[in-house]
Each structure stands twice: as structure tokens, then as C-alpha cells.
């Protein structure tokens, strides 16, 4: 008797284990949401997927019980964008400083001649500087919206920061469409100078003539680096602009998903845009002697033109022999 009663529980356990493993195997084949034994769980599983629902107050996100994309958006915005973007910008600034310390300013090789050649018309300069101003406003206010909570609140406190950000948000939302318009006007004004040509390859091969002691590449009015920046402005500007307009005008019944996706694209591209813009700002100020005067006063010294844009200089010279007073006007 004693042996039998000992064996029996073991046999039962083995049978139970076999049955459980069969059940487990059967359950693993079941499709999620089709648990016939528990229809209530199936119901809520489907709801968790975000099925549309009826409500008698259908405004402002009430036509679904649970929207799942919100948590994803939160993780992407707070995790990916807010944590990584400051390092991208800091790395770009460090890289720029290192480039300045190692390579230094691209100076004029010959003394200035005093002969001035017009490089940018008044219209071009006005458009450039108004777009630049709008860009800086957008970058500062936009980065404040993304990073201010982590960077500025510890310094200024909640009250001051909230007051500033209230204004920053309004500024950001009104300047945004203006910046988009500026970028599109720039595109119209300058696209004919920025079509890629064969000589642009030469510029990339010799690193724009800034690094190393090789001969400077032949360059027309716009060099390959400037062309690259032009096209980046157009691509980044359109992406940031279109998503920005979607975020700025919540009057076309955009879904929350549209807003979340727009925000992610907007923020990611904007951070890259700001990062690349440092390169342009560097080249236009510290990086190259005489570059800032070109856009500020509109004209450049003939020596600068010959050194940095030789083909354009020759073209200008040919024009001025046809019309002797052209360069003075």
C-alpha cells in the first residue's frame, strides 16, 4: 500500500506535466486576440490596439479610448531627440573650434587691390539677412522648447522660464511661415547659380583649397560647398517648413498621429539644420577673410574674387570690358 500511494502522485504529476506541455504548445499557436475561453480579454486587447469608438462629445481626441502613439512619441521626443540633439550641436561646435585652431582662417594671399566688384545685390542681401535673422530666432526659440526644461529652468526657475517660453512660442509660431517664405524666395533667386556642374567635383577633391597646399580649384560664382548648403537649405527648410505649418495650424483636423509624426520630423531635421548652419556661419565669418564683407556690403575686393572665385572674376572682367562702368555702379 505504501509503495502504491508513493508512486501514484508521481504518475499523476507526470500526466499533469504532459497535459500542461500540450496545453502550452496549443496556446502558443493561438493568434493573439482569439482566446475563445476568454472573450472579455479579447475585447480589451482589441481596444488596446486603438479601435475607434463612439462618443457624444467627439472633440479633442475623444473618439478612441486609448491612443498608443502618444507613449511612442514621448519616448522619441524625450529620449532620442532631447538627449542626443545637444551632443550633436556641442560636437559640431567643438569640431568647428578644432578646425579653426588647426587650419585657421583662409586668408587673402595677396594684398587688397582696392578695386571692388559687386557680388550680391541689395535685394539678395536683404533676403539673406532677413532669412538669417528669422532662422536665428527660430533656432533659439525652438531649442528652448526642446531643451529649456533641462537647461534653462535650473538657471532661471519656473516662473521666468515660463514667461520667456510663452513669448518664444508665439514668436516661433509667427516667424515660422515667414522663414519658410524666405527660404522659398532664396531658392527662386539663387537656384540658377546652384545647379551642380562638373567643376564642383574638383572642389571636393581639393577640399575647397582650404586644406593642404595644392592649387586652388577653379570656381564660378558659387563654389561646391555653397551649392551643397543651398540644397540643404532647400531640403531641410522644406521638411521643417511643411511639418511646421502642420503643427502651426491645428485647424485642418489633423490627427494626433499626424501631429506626433510632424513633430518628430520637425525636431530631428531642425536640429540637423541648425548643426549644418554652424558650418555656414563659420565660413561666412571666421573661416574666410573677406567672406563676411561680401554679404554685408555687397561687394568684394578683386583680389578676393580672383583667389576664391576665379571663373566668376574672369566673367566679371569680361563684362566690365564690354561695359567699362559696370564695376563702379
Amino acid at each position, binding site marked *: 500500500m505504501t509503495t502504491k500511494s508513493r508512486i501514484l502522485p508521481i504518475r499523476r504529476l507526470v500526466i499533469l506535466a504532459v497535459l500542461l506541455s500540450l496545453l502550452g504548445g496549443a496556446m502558443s499557436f493561438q493568434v493573439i486576440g482569439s482566446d475563445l475561453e476568454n*472573450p*472579455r480579454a479579447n*475585447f480589451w486587447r482589441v*481596444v488596446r490596439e486603438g*479601435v475607434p*469608438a*463612439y*462618443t*457624444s*462629445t467627439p*472633440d*479633442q*481626441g*475623444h*473618439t*478612441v*479610448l*486609448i*491612443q*498608443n502613439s*502618444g*507613449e511612442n*512619441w*514621448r519616448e522619441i*521626443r*524625450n529620449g532620442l531627440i532631447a538627449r542626443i540633439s545637444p551632443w550633436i550641436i556641442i560636437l559640431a561646435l567643438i569640431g568647428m573650434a578644432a578646425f579653426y585652431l588647426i587650419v585657421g582662417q583662409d586668408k587673402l594671399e595677396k594684398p587688397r587691390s582696392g578695386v571692388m566688384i559687386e557680388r550680391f545685390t541689395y535685394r539678395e542681401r536683404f533676403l539673406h539677412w532677413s532669412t538669417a535673422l528669422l532662422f536665428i530666432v527660430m533656432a533659439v526659440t525652438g531649442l528652448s*522648447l*526642446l531643451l*529649456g*526644461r533641462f537647461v534653462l*529652468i535650473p538657471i532661471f526657475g*519656473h*516662473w521666468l*522660464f*515660463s514667461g520667456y*517660453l*510663452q513669448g518664444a*512660442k*508665439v514668436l516661433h*509660431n*509667427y516667424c515660422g511661415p515667414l522663414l519658410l517664405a524666405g527660404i522659398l524666395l532664396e531658392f527662386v533667386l539663387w537656384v540658377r547659380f546652384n545647379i551642380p556642374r562638373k567643376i564642383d567635383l574638383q572642389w571636393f577633391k581639393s577640399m575647397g583649397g582650404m586644406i593642404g597646399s595644392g592649387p586652388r580649384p577653379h570656381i564660378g560664382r558659387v563654389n561646391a560647398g555653397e551649392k551643397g548648403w543651398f540644397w540643404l537649405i532647400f531640403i531641410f527648410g522644406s521638411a521643417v517648413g511643411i511639418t511646421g505649418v502642420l*503643427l*502651426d*495650424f*491645428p*485647424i485642418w483636423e489633423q490627427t*494626433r498621429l499626424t*501631429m*506626433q509624426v510632424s*513633430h518628430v520630423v520637425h525636431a530631428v531635421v531642425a536640429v540637423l539644420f541648425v548643426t549644418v548652419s554652424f558650418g555656414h556661419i563659420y565660413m561666412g565669418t571666421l573661416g574666410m577673410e573677406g567672406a563676411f564683407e561680401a554679404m554685408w556690403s555687397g561687394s568684394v575686393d578683386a583680389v578676393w574674387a580672383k583667389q576664391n572665385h576665379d571663373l566668376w572674376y574672369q566673367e566679371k572682367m569680361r563684362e566690365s570690358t564690354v561695359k567699362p562702368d559696370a564695376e563702379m555702379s
Partner: protein
Amino acid sequence: MARMKFLCDTERCIECNACVTACNNEHDVPWGINRRHVVTLKDGESGEKSVSVACMHCTDAPCAAVCPVDCFYTTPDGIVLHDKDLCIGCGYCFYACPFGAPQFPEQNWFAARGKMDKCTFCAGGPGPDNSVEEYKKYGRNRIAEGKLPLCAEMCATKALLAGDGNVVSDIYIQRITKRGGRPQTWGWETAYNFKSGKGENP
């Protein structure tokens, strides 16, 4: 300290929207804002379920996590509140919230939304309790008066429960123990007797 929670019993909610009306009236919220709403799933089909939803006062609240001005705070009772004086109306809390709780008085050009408004668990906001200013911004502070949220207090079928999470779950456990573990033994299908073939399928 109690951890305040809402619970809506979907077997009891009859989608009368009285919680919504009571909330709008108690807090005198602007027209167009509904701090609470009733969602009906499978509307008009067999197995229809209604749920009354407002801010769920999450422990790890997504709205608070994404707020650029950090205007949210959690009371010792676990109620998630926000400071309208800090709010800039960016709408991020609305993008993040799973339940559509944050509401805005307007949706206008240049993303003008006004200050965000949401369920306060009838606990007002920052500043002196039951002041005129608090009432104008956040509605009545019933918690400071020793009362629980009005939506649940006046729910006719007692579907919506609000209060100390332990008490709320005790009540709910009693209910489901009485009902039994499987929906086959109670509710719609038992009442209308579909399975026996005697009842009519709507």
C-alpha cells in the same frame, strides 16, 4: 496616504453622460471643453461597452514628462495637477496622453490654444484652496472640502468609482466575485439567453 484612483465598471456604465454634465456644471468649464467623456465601444453591436474616461492621474504621467515648462505636479494623494500660470498652451500633453484628457479652449491659427484644462480629481490647482481665483482656473476643490469627485458621487449606476485606490478595488473585487469569473454565467448573454436558442439576437 491614500492613492486616489478612478475606476469605471463597464458592466454598469449605461452611457448616460451624467458624469460629463455634472463635471461641466460643478467646475463651470468653458463651452466646448469636456474634462470627462464617455466612450462607447462596439456601439450598437452585441457586446457594446461604455467607459467614462477623464484624466487617469497616472503615476508616470506622459503629459508631465513632455511638458516643456514642467507645469505638472503630483499631490501626495497621487492626483496629477497642473499650474495654468505656467502653461504656455503648446499642446504636447495632448499628443502624449493615452486617454485624450488634456483639453484646450481654442484651436486656432498659429497654434493658439489657450491654457490647457483637464480633470483635477476635483482637487483644484496650486494656490489657496477654495479661493475665487482657484475656482475660476480649475473649478471647485471638493477634495479640500473633504468630498470625492462629483462625477463618481452622482453616478446613477455606481459604475464610476473614485477615491482611495484600495477601497475602490475592494468594491470592484466584491462585484466581480458575485458575478463569477466567466461572462457566460452572467450579464447580457445569460439575460437574453442567446445560447439556449430561446432568446433573440439583437
